């Protein structure tokens, strides 16, 4: 018997019974969680945790938690770019999802979602960087999504954390880019979400709220300069309402900008950029 034992297989017992779980106390609809809207109003933004300088190998890095989204971002560069010569710096941005980032699990390599997301994020981030100061160089940005819920939230949190990491790397920027999401809730299903009123607009929608969206806008902006870097609109919205949504998203971005600025100043002080003694 022992001579024919196969070491490479796990010998399963001949009989087995599945484990019995106690039923969960409440249905998932009213359950509290980081990605759900429990105690915040329709135009109140999510709490955000942001920290820079956590990845020591990178030239600059940032980590963000916003609702059900966790993203780690690292920036390498400016590093010399192989030929051909380019008078401007080039920006390479790559979004990767961890296999455990979403439910159901993602198959690595065959995942096609990161590609359009990377392109969108690149577009949102490009106007914030002084690329003309970096000829013959490239700036490489890698975002690893550790946990994700709604795509719009990944996009807006991704922009916020990427500009934090770029600033942390000491790369010249026009201003800090932050993302904001505003959703127009469909009036057809008659208000399923919690505490929804005020012309059906929702800031920072959660995943189950997003499924009821009639239209949605992700705005990338530089609040310090009052400029918009990118607009991503899905669904169907009136022009007037779209303008209103953009305005509301931008004013929400200002709050995010405050958090971002605070995190960057704290990170800079930790790295030793602080009050210098008079020379």
């Amino acid at each position, binding site marked *: 018997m022992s001579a024919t034992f196969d070491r490479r297989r796990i010998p399963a017992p001949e009989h087995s019974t599945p484990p019995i779980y106690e039923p969960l106390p409440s249905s998932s609809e009213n359950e509290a969680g980081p990605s759900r809207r429990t105690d915040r109003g329709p135009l109140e933004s999510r709490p955000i945790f942001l920290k820079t300088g956590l990845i020591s190998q990178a*030239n600059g890095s940032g980590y963000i938690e916003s609702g059900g989204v966790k993203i780690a971002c690292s920036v*390498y*560069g*400016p*590093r*010399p770019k*192989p*030929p*051909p*010569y380019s008078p401007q710096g080039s920006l390479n941005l790559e979004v990767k999802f961890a296999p455990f980032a979403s439910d159901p699990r993602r198959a690595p390599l065959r995942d096609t979602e990161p590609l359009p997301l990377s392109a969108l994020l690149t577009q949102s981030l490009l106007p*914030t960087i*002084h690329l003309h*100061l*970096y*000829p*013959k*160089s490239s700036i490489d940005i890698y975002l690893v999504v550790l946990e994700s819920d709604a795509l719009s939230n990944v996009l807006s949190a991704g922009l916020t954390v990427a500009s934090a990491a770029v*600033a*942390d*790397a*000491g*790369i*010249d*920027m*026009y*201003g*800090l880019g932050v993302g904001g999401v505003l959703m127009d809730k469909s009036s057809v299903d008659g208000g399923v979400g919690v505490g929804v009123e005020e012309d059906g607009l929702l800031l920072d929608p959660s995943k189950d709220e997003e499924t009821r969206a009639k239209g949605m806008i992700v705005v990338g902006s*530089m609040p*310090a*300069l009052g400029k918009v870097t990118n607009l991503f609109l899905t669904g169907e919205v009136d022009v007037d309402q779209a303008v209103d949504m953009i305005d509301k998203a931008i004013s929400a971005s200002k709050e995010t900008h405050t958090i971002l*600025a605070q995190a*960057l*100043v704290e990170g*800079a*002080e930790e*790295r030793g*950029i*602080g*009050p*210098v003694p*008079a*020379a």
Partner: protein
Amino acid sequence: MASSSTQILLPGQPLPSSLTAPPVPQLGSGVYEYGGKILASVIGIPKREGAIVSVIGREESGNTPDVGSVVTRLSPLQAHVTLTTSNNRPLPESSEEFVGVIRIGDVRLTERDKVKMGECFRLGDLVKANVLSLGDARSYYLSTAANELGVVYATSESGNPLVPVSYQEMEDEQTGKRERRKVAKPEGI
């Protein structure tokens, strides 16, 4: 008249008015002008030295002149170097390195035609140079054609540090042997 502030600025934040007071200053590194205002472009401390305002951040990119570098490869016509510092600040660490080339014509200011590469640089020398241009696709073109540019630190054949004795000679203090280099004029002399 150097003055600085203790407040950390972030990209897009205007410089304090005490630093941008008339006469309107020139822009140094880490700042840019937008809508008539001077804004910071990196995280750092603003500083005004004479007529130039700048924001001093953590690191700087290597595409600016005045570079310290290490010789990695020598050929009769040019010396290949890797750039390590720029404007007295280290270049960002990365797996690839910025490379530069000192062509034989750019080694010395005078008697350019008599320059022999082997009598100016050796492998492993630490060289201070100016960036002439962005160069070709691969490397920056550097120049040591000035008195204060050239070899800053070198070791002799027996491995001891060399001390400059003249503008084209360095001496090993332990063996007394002299070797030829394109020596940088030491600072403060």
